[in-house]
């Protein structure tokens, strides 16, 4: 028997008063492949930024600057939509992925 009886303390029904808290949790650890973006061929058209279901493309001053690998699920949609084919998927090994 749990002494703290946490079940009595948490909000009912899976309700959370802190929406958007996923940004503080690393959810990208179940992927098997990770995107690599070759920045020299990128035209900063932002199609990958629009289509990414996890908002993992990082932008600064209207330029693509990085990929949030803590939240990227490795779905590969960015590879499919990129008009210049500057993104490819590689095996998710330590240090792999991101803007090169």
């Amino acid at each position, binding site marked *: 028997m749990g002494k703290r009886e*946490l*079940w*009595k303390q*948490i*909000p*009912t*029904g*899976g*309700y*959370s*008063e*802190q*929406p958007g*808290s996923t940004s503080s949790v690393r959810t990208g650890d179940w992927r098997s492949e990770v995107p690599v973006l070759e920045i020299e061929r990128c035209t900063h058209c932002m199609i990958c930024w629009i289509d990414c279901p996890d908002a993992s493309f990082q932008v600064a001053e209207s330029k693509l600057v990085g990929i949030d690998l803590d939240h990227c699920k490795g779905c590969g949609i960015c590879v499919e939509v990129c008009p210049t084919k500057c993104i490819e998927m590689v095996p998710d090994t330590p240090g792999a992925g991101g803007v090169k």
Partner: protein
Amino acid sequence: MTTVEKKNIVAKSTASAINGGEAVALAMRQTDPEVVAAYPITPQTFIIEKFSEYVSDGEVNTEYINVESEHAAMSACIGACAAGGRAQTATSGPGLALMYETLWIASGMRLPIVLHLCSRSFSAPINILCDHSDVMAMREASWVMLAGSNPQEAYDQALIAPTIAENPRVKLPTTNVLDGFTVTHSVERVDSLPDEVAKEFIGEWEPDQWALEPGSQATFGALDANDYYFEHKRQQVEALDQAELVVKAQLSKFSEISGRKMSVIETYQMDDAEIAMLVLGSSEGMVRAAIDLARKDGIKVGMVRIRLLRPFPVHDLRAILAGISAVGVLDRAIAFGAPGNGLVLDVSTATRTMNPRPLLANYVYGLGGRATVKQQFREAISDVVKVAETGQEPMKPEYLGLK
């Protein structure tokens, strides 16, 4: 409330000759939910046809949504209720089956939706008539389940249901079971409360912690997985424990207002009974008639009718069955492959540590709308007498009226 006030309310009630479906629609008109979302299915149609008239005639403020399926009906109710509105729907048999996934979402999100379930068999072979296959199929979905036996009870329970569901100690969806055709389509006298009395009884509902509304920030139905799902399910167990107390309080409060006594378990001729017949739903009338026949033959038999199916009123049942030597449990659905059918499993579990414990015999009747007449229940009573005399408890059910 004084006796005079009580009598005044009872006197002001309107008696009408309406069927069970219309009786539920009438209670829904008095409830005036923000949203009703439903898909028509026999034998539920009387409810939503009549309620649609109220909507068209401007007698309610309800947003009525014609949805494309029962899955969508419950989903729309979930959204409406999460936004802080009262939401109701109605369905039958196969419609409930199509709604099954969302039944669990409604209870898991702790949304006090009210569902009027007009019991109907499952296909195949095709059958639109009454049995309790659908009722039994939703017992584990964490809903409070009230089952009536006539149009008056369908009306009464339709008014009581939201007050149970919305109680902050409960916060669980609640279903009002009325038997397909035998209740939904039978015209009987129904005494309805004056609108203002009904409205006062139902009261206003304010969600205690959540609402999807402009300006509020909240996440609903977030991923729980192995982190907190177990804990949320344990909370639902607690809510159902609390629900039993709330149901009793609300039945008692409603009884005072209406003058109609209601309990979680109804009994007939149990005071001096040695054996009992246990039933759920509208066959109560026929079972009472069979008991009258048996009483003329000198058999001390009584009737027990379960009104509150979930949470199952274990302690009340044990108190009622104390000293009873044998019980004939009448099941209107088959639990295929199970060691016993639905009701007998519940009763067997509830009575298992009683000492002495009543012997149980199980009878399956009325599947797919098959009429079961009083003589057949009378024969079952004779069979229960034999069980009591011989002490031989049958492990298999008998099938009443099987050709």
